[in-house]
């Protein structure tokens, strides 16, 4: 895990491994208001899980990164990978409900995906910790 000092409140690189899911949750926990704590934890967990499970299927593992910063009362979190992008697949794992849950717990959700990777942008209103 690599942390960097930037304009972001949190910026780190994570290995493509299941253990990264909890590392990502823990890295943003200190930024979040109690009211949005469970929403942020679930959104981050699902986004990083998706990257670990799907992004590098059929290719060498690369890197997953997480960036988080406050924008007023909002907390903006981006989970990125340098995998193969979102592709149709016949292989299934889990329930495939992860993205639906992210949509449920965020106020804004944007997904950018290409053959160079995927970034999931999540925004949480009222998430600034007092």
């Amino acid at each position: 895990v690599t942390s960097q000092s930037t304009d972001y409140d949190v910026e780190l690189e994570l290995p493509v491994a299941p253990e990264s899911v909890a590392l990502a949750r823990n890295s943003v926990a200190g930024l979040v208001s109690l009211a949005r704590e469970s929403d942020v934890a679930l959104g981050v967990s699902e986004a990083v899980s998706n990257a670990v499970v799907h992004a590098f299927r059929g290719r060498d593992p690369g890197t997953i990164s997480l960036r988080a910063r406050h924008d007023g009362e909002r907390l903006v979190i981006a989970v990125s990978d340098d995998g193969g992008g979102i592709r149709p697949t016949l292989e299934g794992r889990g329930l495939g409900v992860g993205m639906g849950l992210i949509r449920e717990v965020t106020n804004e959700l944007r997904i950018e995906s290409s053959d160079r990777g995927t970034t999931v942008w999540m925004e949480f209103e009222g998430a600034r910790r007092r």
Partner: protein
Amino acid sequence: MNELELDVELHDQDGRSVCVVTASGDVDLATAEGLRSALGSDQVRGGDALVVDLRKVGFIDSSGLAVVLENSQLRGSAFAIVHDEGSAVAKLFEMTGTTAHVRGFSTPEEAVAGIEREDGS
């Protein structure tokens, strides 16, 4: 807390064995497989019914939900979970519209008794 601890107890209820698995910690991609393995172990599968106590689970995501739903589908009325109202577990079931797919109780004792009544034996 990011680890998941699992405790297995066998209860005899009117001559039937009910296995109660208590999970403590977080259930996510890293720990869900451990829960899946535990619920599929010979010791747990040997019981007539299975109760999974999730009251000490502080966080659960879709990886954990999948394990619970798999077992509910497999065991039908001989499967139940225990969770607190308003907990992370309850919220996840509500958000995914799966509350009705799993029998939920407030205590292991109620769950053990409920399973026995449901099976009628």
